[in-house]
């Protein structure tokens, strides 16, 4: 019960002084400038690719055939994950549309096409506040995500919260530990030299503590996403963000 109350409280935007910082706020000025200039932000290439895919008729129908212009997606990504029979991430929603409405095959996680479609949809919410969905089913999902966030794991036996709640702002070797807000996904990460989803980012952190990463699309990763998005509620979306 306390869990649920807590999870619900998270949905209400905090009224008190907000010391939450996006990864954007703590990265270097060069990387910030790169993100803000659409002609320099490499993530924009994925957005452009996504615009083309939006109108391509895969399996007979395009996304545009049902939804119209991609601008109709404004605000959608800011609410995800949602609940529709099961907790659903944005990637899972796109693949569900493909299989049930387009008669197409699902796209692989981290494939160019899925990243491009996710990027173009999330880009429509750039600048809008993250607005966690009010579906009551999501309370338990967020509570599970928070439990996983606080659970030690891997050979190094560290929890996400130990870095991102307790030690954010300090340096792990050369890397500044961010608060871990999923404000800009999918992001162009300089270290990856490419675009990656939030789930890729979370699996990277698991690898760093020598844990076996949760599978792409697993209930665990979607629960973590749901918790992190609620934790970042009210912060503006930046997609496509650039990160070091």
């Amino acid at each position, binding site marked *: 019960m306390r869990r649920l109350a807590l999870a619900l409280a998270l949905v209400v935007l905090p009224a008190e002084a907000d010391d939450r910082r996006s990864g954007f706020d703590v990265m270097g000025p060069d990387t910030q400038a790169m993100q803000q200039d659409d002609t320099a932000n490499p993530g924009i290439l994925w957005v452009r690719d996504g615009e083309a895919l939006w109108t391509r008729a895969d399996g007979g129908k395009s996304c545009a055939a049902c939804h119209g212009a991609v601008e109709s997606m404004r605000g959608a990504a800011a609410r995800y994950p949602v609940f529709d029979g099961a907790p659903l991430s944005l990637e899972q929603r796109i693949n569900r549309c493909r299989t049930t409405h387009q008669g197409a095959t699902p796209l692989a996680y981290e494939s160019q096409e899925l990243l491009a479609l996710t990027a173009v949809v999330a880009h429509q919410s750039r600048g809008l506040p993250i607005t966690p969905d009010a579906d009551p089913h999501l309370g338990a999902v967020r509570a599970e995500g928070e439990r996983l966030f606080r659970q030690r794991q891997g050979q190094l036996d560290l929890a996400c919260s130990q870095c991102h709640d307790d030690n954010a702002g300090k340096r792990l070797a050369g890397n500044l530990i961010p608060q871990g807000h999923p404000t800009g996904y999918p992001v162009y990460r300089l270290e990856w030299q490419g675009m990656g989803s939030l789930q890729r980012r979370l699996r990277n952190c698991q690898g760093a503590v020598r*844990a076996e990463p949760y599978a792409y699309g697993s209930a665990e990763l979607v629960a973590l996403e749901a918790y992190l998005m609620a934790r970042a509620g009210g912060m503006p979306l930046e997609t496509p963000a650039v990160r070091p």
Partner: protein
Amino acid sequence: MPKPGSAPSPAPSLASAVALAVLLTTQPAAAQDALPDSLTGTKGDPARGRAIVADRRRGLCLLCHSGPFPEERFQGTLAPDLSGAGARLSEGQLRLRIVDARRLVPDTIMPSYFKVEGLTRVAPAFQGKPVLSAAEIEDVVAFLTTLRD
């Protein structure tokens, strides 16, 4: 932290880890701040220990700590500077802090370097292996005792 797919640590030493569990539980109460006995029965080698401490994939120490390693860039700011550790702490106290710092600070982020049980979702490449072997820990301890100022 190591990147996913980086090389696993050297050989498992499950037997010594089990021996350690016995050791830890049979320490007299007065010695709970220290592990006076060598894990291997012999003294470690400080030069090897220094190399382990400086190696971000083996010791991992400099991910969190800083210390007297002028050649190493990007040291961590998550933990106390290791300079002078050998003056502040006895050999036995240093050993306990590497073996299982959580005995002293239960919620510390410092990993327990000799622990193989009670862990969650350890990646297959690291299962059943402590972060460092008994011999490596003795090398690290031998090196830390030389950090006098």
